């Protein structure tokens, strides 16, 4: 399996990276916190660790640590606009339950 970006998400990430002037890709991960178990981490990546898995989707590198990989496998990250707000959305097949606001989830 793999982790992918939609084309819209990839375009946005690339744009943000260009703007930032540095960074090799996008680091995705999870950590245990939040009101419903796990929370997503989405950060600019400046380094790749040896144990990281690296995917490439629409020309953007996605970097995931092995611990997070278990929770994220098969995820597609989309860029969405809802009203005035816009941002990234995780379509994660492993999720069984989310907290009300969707910022954290359980598997």
């Amino acid at each position: 399996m793999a982790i992918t970006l939609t084309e819209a998400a990839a375009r946005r990430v690339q744009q943000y990276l260009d703007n930032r002037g540095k960074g090799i890709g996008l680091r995705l991960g999870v950590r245990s916190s939040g009101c419903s178990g796990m929370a997503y981490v989405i950060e600019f990546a400046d380094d790749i660790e040896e144990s990281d898995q690296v995917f490439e989707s629409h020309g953007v590198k996605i970097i995931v640590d092995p611990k997070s990989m278990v929770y994220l496998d098969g995820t597609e990250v989309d860029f969405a606009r809802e009203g005035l707000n816009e941002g990234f959305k995780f379509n994660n097949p492993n999720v069984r339950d989310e907290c009300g606001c969707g910022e954290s989830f359980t598997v």
Partner: protein
Amino acid sequence: MALLQISEPGQSTAPHQHRLAAGIDLGTTNSLVASVRSGEAATLPDEQGRHLLPSVVRYLEDGNVVVGHEARAAEAEDPLNTISSVKRLMGRGIADVVHTGARLPYEFIDVDSAVPKIHTVAGDVSAIEVSAEILKALRQRAERTLGGELEGVVITVPAYFDDAQRQATRDAARLAGLKVLRLLNEPTAAAVAYGLDRSDGGVIAVYDLGGGTFDVSILRLNRGVFEVLATGGDTALGGDDMDRAIAEWIMRQAGIADDSGHHQMRRLMRDARAAKETLTSQDSASLDIELEDGSHWQGELTREQFDELIEPLIRKTVSTTRRTLRDAGVDVDEVNEVVMVGGSTRVPRVREAIGDFFGRVPHTEIDPDKVVAIGAALQADVLVGNKPEDEMLLLDVIPLSLGIETMGGLVEKIIPRNTTIPVARAQDFTTYKDGQTAMSIHVLQGEREMVDDCRSLGRFTLRGIPPMVAGAARIRVTFQVDADGLLSVTAEEQTSGVQASIEIKPSYGLTDTEIESMLRDSMEHAREDMEARRLAEQRVEADRVLEALTAALAEDGDRFLSVDERDDIESEMDRLADLRANGTVEQIKEGIRSLEKVCAGYVERRMNTSIRDAMSGRNVEEFE
């Protein structure tokens, strides 16, 4: 699910702990709000995709408030209740307002708190309250866009704003429910947007030509601190003047009379503006003007012709820039960077002229309308803690020197302008006369030498100085400015240890109580007002009764009243006078009633007598 933003490595926040921050450019004509998302600072549009919010507030009869485009559209039809350019009134007393804005079409009401109010159908409002409405609109936009409550904001102010104007801006933010992380000078914000704060330092010129105002600021960056070396400008020069120059040219070409109707003039200005905007990217603009008689005049305005028309305006800004450089004590070739701000700097000839003057290409990459808000957003992002601390942290500086009055009406500066805060400075003073036991400390702000030319911030008196010969006492005056810009001044006589101090909040800023009372529920407020009014009315009524009775008693009290009767009336009058001073509305009412009861016999006797007097010796017929 929630929409997520990309964080800097290691800076991911826990869910529900997003620290949202925004930068606000609170402008004279237009305002903007910007925020950093996924590492990118950008201004936030409204639902219609418009980034600029006109700084216009309209008050409606039903108490509702309209802000922005809709309010601006109503300006012509409802000028008294539609308030624009309120920034010019911020932190200004009534005298300043009359002095600077004699042509503002509003009804001012002088109130004791030294904050002039504007009368509208929805009640009287101060400049601070009007600004708060603009800030509220921007806050709503930001919170809806970012999907949460704002943790804090950075608001930009002109570099020349004094303490009172800055305090007024903070007050407005507080009224709008915003936490001000910092006020940032507009030119500094523009420099931050271009990342110049991370450069090695040097002198930066910021040329800001907006719709109606022109400002030029000379900054020096020194170890992460921007000092304002000098500012200059013209509060009535900008893009509107370019439009007018084009409109006048069209009038000459098309033979339109000077005294043409209002409608025609307004349309002309609109066409002129469109032509100006076309000429930003094209070499010529074709014009099609509908004349009053319905016919059309067609013509063409070339870039060269336009440049020629606006040349006097540009020359004016260049000479102001030259003067400001001289004030700053900086040569043109010492300027390392030039930053362009304001929509009018899109005009190619402006860029060219300023580039020629400084001998370098000015920064124009960021939209000149948005650059200030973007710089503020970047700074807000750091201050709210979304970036590693060492990234950048601009320090605030004191915009104007602080000092005290000395003999002869002179100002002794204790903290010079551009000192970074927090700061504490002390200076020793002595007595002027033999045996002097008190000293009055008058705290002033400003760059001028004479007290009259500076702004008075407050006074206090140090008493209990032991009598000594003149010049023997040692009085140490300490000025302290905390990180929020609040000034406290302490004076201490060193040999005896007596001291006195004052905390300065500029007298023209609102007091905390005033702000609180404004924040209170409006219904509650209305009831209070009504109660106060009823009480005042009842007191007037009591006064009237007492006065009339006193006069009557003096006139004929002895004639109609026994000693006992008179005593009764007088004790009842005393009771009413007491109730009038301390009683409630109902108690005063009751006092008036019971006084009237006691007097009933007296009043009747007087009445009868006066009628008898009037009628004596006349026939009944004469009265019909």
